């Protein structure tokens, strides 16, 4: 099996089609398990009561928002370096999902902030930098749609995405660098977790669920991007006619 053959959209299109149902199924199962553990199994927090339970959506969404930006920038960088069409298509497909998770993190953060801090929104470093991340996603998408020439649109938004990577470590370390209202990290590689085991387990399951969801949605979107860009050229029909490309759905 030569994996590099999948860098061609013709080969990747049917592969993506076959992978989507698997990732989507795993995402749904893990989301149900994670939410059940988060809402019914995990113990009540001794300080914040029941309101803390939104952490099972909030923290995974925030992680995904930063992670997807880095992945988008990596695809953009690979596209610039190797001049690969598929890399730019992946970067284009990732942006809306990343923006959605950024918005979800801000929304759930506001819903969590109201009962614990007494305010929907405070202008502290982490909230502000996450908001800037949302603007950056918007910038990447708007820059792409404003430029008619496809090649220039790809490469210009790639440069902007790469410049914006500077913001990701700022968001991640903002709770350590500045004295903020936002609580510090509950989970870290160096010191381990400060949470109960079931809480941590539910959060990790939700993170993997969001991750699988992202892969499924991004693969579905990248297929749309391919069809849109290649205007359903002959390879698509040929690929659909091949027996192994028949989709499991």
């Amino acid at each position: 099996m030569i994996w590099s053959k999948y860098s061609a959209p013709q080969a990747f299109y049917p592969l993506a089609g076959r992978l989507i149902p698997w990732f989507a199924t795993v995402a749904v199962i893990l989301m149900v398990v994670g939410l059940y553990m988060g809402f019914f199994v995990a113990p009540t927090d001794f300080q914040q009561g029941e309101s803390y339970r939104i952490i099972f959506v909030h923290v995974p969404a925030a992680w995904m928002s930063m992670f997807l930006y880095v992945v988008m920038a990596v695809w953009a960088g690979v596209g610039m370096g190797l001049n690969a069409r598929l890399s730019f298509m992946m970067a284009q497909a990732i942006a809306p999902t990343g923006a959605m998770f950024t918005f979800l993190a801000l929304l759930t953060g506001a819903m969590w902030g109201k009962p614990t801090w007494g305010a929907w929104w405070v202008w502290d470093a982490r909230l502000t930098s996450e908001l800037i991340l949302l603007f950056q996603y918007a910038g990447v998408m708007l820059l792409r749609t404003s430029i008619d020439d496809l090649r220039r649109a790809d490469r210009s938004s790639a440069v902007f995405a790469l410049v914006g990577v500077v913001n990701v470590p700022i968001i991640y370390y903002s709770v350590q660098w500045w004295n903020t209202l936002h609580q510090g990290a509950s989970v870290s590689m160096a010191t381990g977790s400060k949470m109960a085991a079931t809480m941590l387990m539910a959060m990790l399951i939700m993170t993997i669920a969001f991750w699988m969801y992202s892969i499924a949605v991004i693969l579905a979107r990248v297929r749309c991007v391919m069809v849109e860009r290649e205007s359903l050229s002959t390879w698509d029909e040929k690929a659909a006619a091949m027996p192994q490309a028949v989709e499991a759905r």
Partner: protein
Amino acid sequence: MSDSSMWVSISGIIRRDLLLAMRRWSDAAMSVFFLVIVVSLFPLGVGPEPAVLRTIAPGVLWVAALLTCLLSLARVFTPDYLDGVLEQMVLVPQPLSLLVLGKVLAHWVISGLPVVLLSPLLGLQFGLEGEALGVLVLSLLLGTPTLSMIGAIGAALVLGVRGSGLLVALLVLPLYVPVLIFGAGAVTSSMAGIGGEANLSLLGACLVLSLFLAPWATAAALRIALE
């Protein structure tokens, strides 16, 4: 390439851009008047309460400086793009990032330096005094070159794109936020008596980082635009 020829190419670009700006001095004058008018609107809108004005002064002056820089960004590359000079700059043997550095420095002298020089006067209008006024000037002196550097990336990305005026604002303003926070923060903390050194150091770090990375990213964006 030797150091002397590097310096010759940068200073040549700077001299050329400054000369062009002097021939069309009304462009530069417009951004200065824009700054003064924007800053003067706030006391009219918020009310002439001296305590309130002193509190909002760092933020207002910094936001006004940021908008002034933003509005003048279209002048960095567009004229050269339209008359074909930019294409020649890509073709010459000198590295494009060096020429870009020269153009950005010239842009700062035209649109950033007047802001720095005017800021003590505008600060006085808002009741800033003594040390805070000095920190305001110093923060703008460290911060406005960074604004020009980051802005040049945006200006190069939207070169010749429809709706580029709004688009460049959407791209560049989020990236300006750290500079705004550190710049206004330096003045605010010196007014609070804890000294602005920490924020000024961070501004200096932003400047060094942008001097190092921005010309390179701008040159890449220019090459893409001129393909």
